[in-house]
C-alpha cells in the first residue's frame, strides 16, 4: 500500500482529509444491517484467505462437478471452448506475442478463483453451488494446470499452501516513473516533426469491422415501440398469442427479427447448412420435432425422458421452454436464464421455423 500512496494523493486537501477526518454529522438514515443479512452477502475472499468458509473438495469430485457445470464453456480439461475463457495452460507464454493467460499461467492468487466461482459461476446459475463444490472445482482447476496431483483435496486449512506460478509477476502501476516524465509538453513537437509519413498498417486489409446492420433494423423497431405505447389495448392479443400459439403461416419479417434475437443462442447452438452440435445441439428442424431429436447429442436425463414420453417441441412448448428453460426441465444443461420478452420468443420460434424449412 505504502508503495503507491504518495503517488495517488494528489492534493494537500486530500492528505488533510485522511489525516484528520472531520466527518459530517450523521443524518440517521438507513437501518442497522442484521448479522444474517451481512452473512448472506459478505462473501468476498481476500488474497490471504480472509473470508474462506470451512470446507473441502477433492480433485476427483471436482472433475465430475466441473464436467456438469463448467465444461460446456470451459472444456472438459479447462482448455476452453470457442471464445470462452481458457482456465488451464499457457505456462511460460506471458512474454510471447499472444500470451495465454489462465489460472495457472497468470492468476496471482488462488483466492480469486474461489471468490469468482462462488460469486459468478456457473454462468446462468450463479451463487447456487455449495462451498464444498467450489473447493472441488478450484481443486480441479489446479489439477488441470498440473499444480496439484489427482489425489489432492483442497481445504480451508491448506488453501494458502498452494503456490501460484505467477504470484510474483505483478508490479504496481509505474506510469508515474515510466511514462509521465516522457509524455509531456516539453516533448511535444509542432513543426518538422518527421520527414515522411508512410502507411504501415491498414484496417481495411484486415477487414474485421462489422458491417452495418443496426441501421436497417432500428427504424423498423422504433415504430413498434411507439405503437405499443400508443395502444396498450391492442398489445394484449400478443400475450394471448403466446399463451396459445398456433402453427400460423410463416412470417418472414418476424423470422428476420428472430435471427437477431438468436444471437443470444448462438454461443451454444448452430443452425443452417453444415451446422454442428456444440455446447448445445443443432436446432435445424426443431419446431415440431420430438424433444431431444438429435441422435448424437448427449441430452440431460430430463430431456431424454421427455423424448421417451413422446413430448414434441410444438410452438407452445418451445415458448414455455424459451421463457424459462429450468422451469420446464429442471436439470437441462442449458444454462440460459430465458427470454424475457414474448416478442423475442415468438420471433426466435419463427426464425427456427425458417431454418427448419
Amino acid at each position, binding site marked *: 500500500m505504502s508503495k503507491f500512496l504518495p503517488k495517488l494523493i494528489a492534493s494537500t486537501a486530500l492528505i488533510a482529509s485522511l489525516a484528520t*477526518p472531520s466527518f459530517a454529522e450523521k443524518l440517521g438514515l438507513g437501518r442497522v444491517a442484521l448479522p444474517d443479512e451481512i452473512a448472506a452477502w459478505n462473501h468476498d475472499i*481476500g488474497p490471504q484467505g480472509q473470508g474462506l468458509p470451512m470446507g473441502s473438495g477433492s480433485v476427483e469430485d471436482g472433475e465430475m462437478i466441473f464436467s456438469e457445470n463448467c465444461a460446456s464453456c470451459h472444456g472438459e480439461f479447462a482448455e476452453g471452448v470457442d471464445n470462452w475463457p481458457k482456465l488451464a495452460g499457457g505456462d511460460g507464454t506471458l512474454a510471447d506475442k499472444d500470451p495465454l493467460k489462465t489460472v495457472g499461467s497468470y492468476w496471482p492468487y488462488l483466492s480469486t478463483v474461489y471468490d469468482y466461482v462462488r460469486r459468478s459461476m456457473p454462468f446462468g446459475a450463479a451463487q447456487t453451488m455449495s462451498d464444498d463444490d467450489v473447493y472441488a472445482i478450484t481443486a480441479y482447476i489446479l489439477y488441470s494446470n498440473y499444480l496439484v496431483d489427482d489425489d489432492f483435496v483442497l481445504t480451508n486449512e491448506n488453501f494458502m499452501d498452494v503456490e501460484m506460478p505467477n504470484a510474483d509477476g505483478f508490479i504496481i502501476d509505474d506510469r508515474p516513473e515510466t511514462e509521465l516524465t516522457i509524455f509531456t509538453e516539453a516533448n511535444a513537437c509542432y513543426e518538422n516533426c518527421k520527414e515522411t509519413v508512410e502507411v504501415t498498417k491498414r484496417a481495411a486489409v484486415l477487414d474485421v469491422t462489422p458491417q452495418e446492420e443496426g441501421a436497417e433494423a432500428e427504424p423498423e423497431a422504433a415504430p413498434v415501440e411507439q405503437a405499443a405505447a400508443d395502444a396498450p389495448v391492442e398489445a394484449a392479443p400478443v400475450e394471448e398469442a403466446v399463451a396459445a400459439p398456433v402453427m400460423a403461416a410463416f412470417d418472414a419479417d418476424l423470422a428476420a427479427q428472430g435471427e437477431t434475437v438468436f444471437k443470444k443462442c448462438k454461443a451454444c447452438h448452430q443452425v443452417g447448412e453444415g451446422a454442428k452440435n456444440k455446447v448445445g445441439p443443432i436446432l435445424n428442424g426443431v419446431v415440431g420435432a420430438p424433444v431431444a431429436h438429435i441422435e448424437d447429442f448427449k441430452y440431460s436425463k430430463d430431456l431424454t425422458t421427455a423424448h421417451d414420453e413422446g413430448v414434441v417441441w410444438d410452438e407452445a412448448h418451445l415458448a414455455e421452454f424459451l421463457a424459462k428453460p429450468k422451469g420446464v426441465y429442471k436439470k437441462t444443461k442449458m444454462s440460459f436464464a430465458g427470454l424475457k420478452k414474448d416478442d423475442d420468443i415468438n420471433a426466435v420460434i419463427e426464425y427456427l421455423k425458417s431454418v427448419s424449412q
Partner: protein
Amino acid sequence: MSDTPTHDGPTKGPNRRAFLRGAAATGVGLAATAKATAQDTPDPLITEMQDWASSTGEGVDASPYGMPIQFEGDVVRRNVPWLTADVISSINFTPIHALDGTITPQGCAFERHHSGAIELKKEDYRLMINGLVDRPLVFSYADLERFPRENRTYFLECAANTGMEWAGAQLNGSQFTHGMIHNMEYSGISLRTLLEEAGLDAAGDLADKWVYVEGADASSNGRSIPMEKALDDVLVAFKANGEALRMEHGYPVRLVVPGWEGNMWVKWLRRIEVTDHPIESREETSKYTDTLADGTSRKWTWIMDAKSVVTSPSPQMPITHGKGPLVITGLAWSGRGAISGVDVSIDGGKTWQKARLAKEGEKMALTRFYLDINWDGSEMFLQSRAHDDTGYVQPTKAQLREVRGENSVYHNNCIQTWWVKENGESENVEVSS
C-alpha cells in the same frame, strides 16, 4: 452540380458501402454536393408543396417518452460479435462518430455487462455498508434520496477502449476504435457521505484501508478501491442526464468513479465493504492488469490517461461535400484532470496546429474540439493529440509500444490516424513515426 471531381473514380474498401448507406439515408447523398451557386433548375423541395407543409404532424402524445426521429436510425450502439463468446457478457459501442457536443444520450451510451443487464426495481433495491465501520447499515432507495445530492459530469471509459488496436490498425470506425466511452451528468450522493453515515472510526488509520464495491447482478462484479479515492470524488448515482439510469447502466443505482477505468463503476451497486486489504477479485487480477513485453504485468492501473480522437471526418463519416470549408471535430478527455488543449495534424504528425475547444475543459469530462479548415481535396492523415492540465501529452502508438510492448490490452491511449482519401472516404491506418 458540375464541380464534383473528388467523387468520380472507383470506390474501394470493403466497408465503404455499408457505412455510406447511413449517410445516404439521411439525405446527404454523395452527389448532393458542390458549390452553393451551382443550382441550375428550381429545387422541387422548394417550389412544390410538400406534405409536411400542408397536412398536420404528430400530436403531443405520439411518443410519451421520446425516441429519435426515424431518419437517425443509424445512430445506434453496435456490437463486434467476434470480441466475446456471448452477448450476455459483452460490450457494445457508443456511436461517437455521429454525435456532437459532449453529453452522451443514455440511449446510445455503450454497455458492458458480465451476466446480462438485470431488471431490479427501486422497491427491491438495497444497499449495504459493512466491514470496518462503526455501524453496518442497509439503505433503501428512498433512504438514498434523502441524502444531500450532487451533480457532476464525468466520462466513463472502459480500460479496454482502443484495446483492439495495440497490434495494428484493426477496426474501421471511431465507434469501434474509441466508442467504449460515454459522458453524462450524474446526480447522486457522495460516497464519502454514506461512509460517514456508517462511521469510519472503527477503521482506524484510513491511509491503508479500502472499500470493496459489488453489484447485485448474477456476476456480482466487484472491485477494490483505495479509501483515498472513495473519500475524494466517488459518487453513488441514480440519475444521469436528468433521467433515471437506464437498465443497461445499472438502474436504479450505480457507482461513479471519476477518471478511473469503467470496470470500477459498479452497476446495480448492492454492497460497500470497508476492508484492510484489496480483495484481488477476478476483475483486478486476471482482467484489468496490463502485461508488459517482458511478461510482468502492471496492476492497479486505475487512472485513464489523456486521450483524444477525431470523430469526423472518419471511416464512418466520409466527407460528402467535396473541397472547401470542412469541420474537423473530435473528443478529448483525461482521467488525471481537465483537457487544456488539443492539437490536430492533417499531415500524419509532421506539423500540428491548435484546435478550438468548444468550451474550457472540465475535470474528468469529455471536451469537444473543432478545427475549421478549407480542404483542398487532397488526401490527409488526420490525427489529434490531447493535453491535460497536469502537463501530460497524449503519446503516439510507437511511444506507447516502446514502454509497454503490444500485450497490455488495456489503457491504449495512443494517437489515432485516419487516412482521408481524395474522394472523402477515410480508413483507419498506422503511419511511420
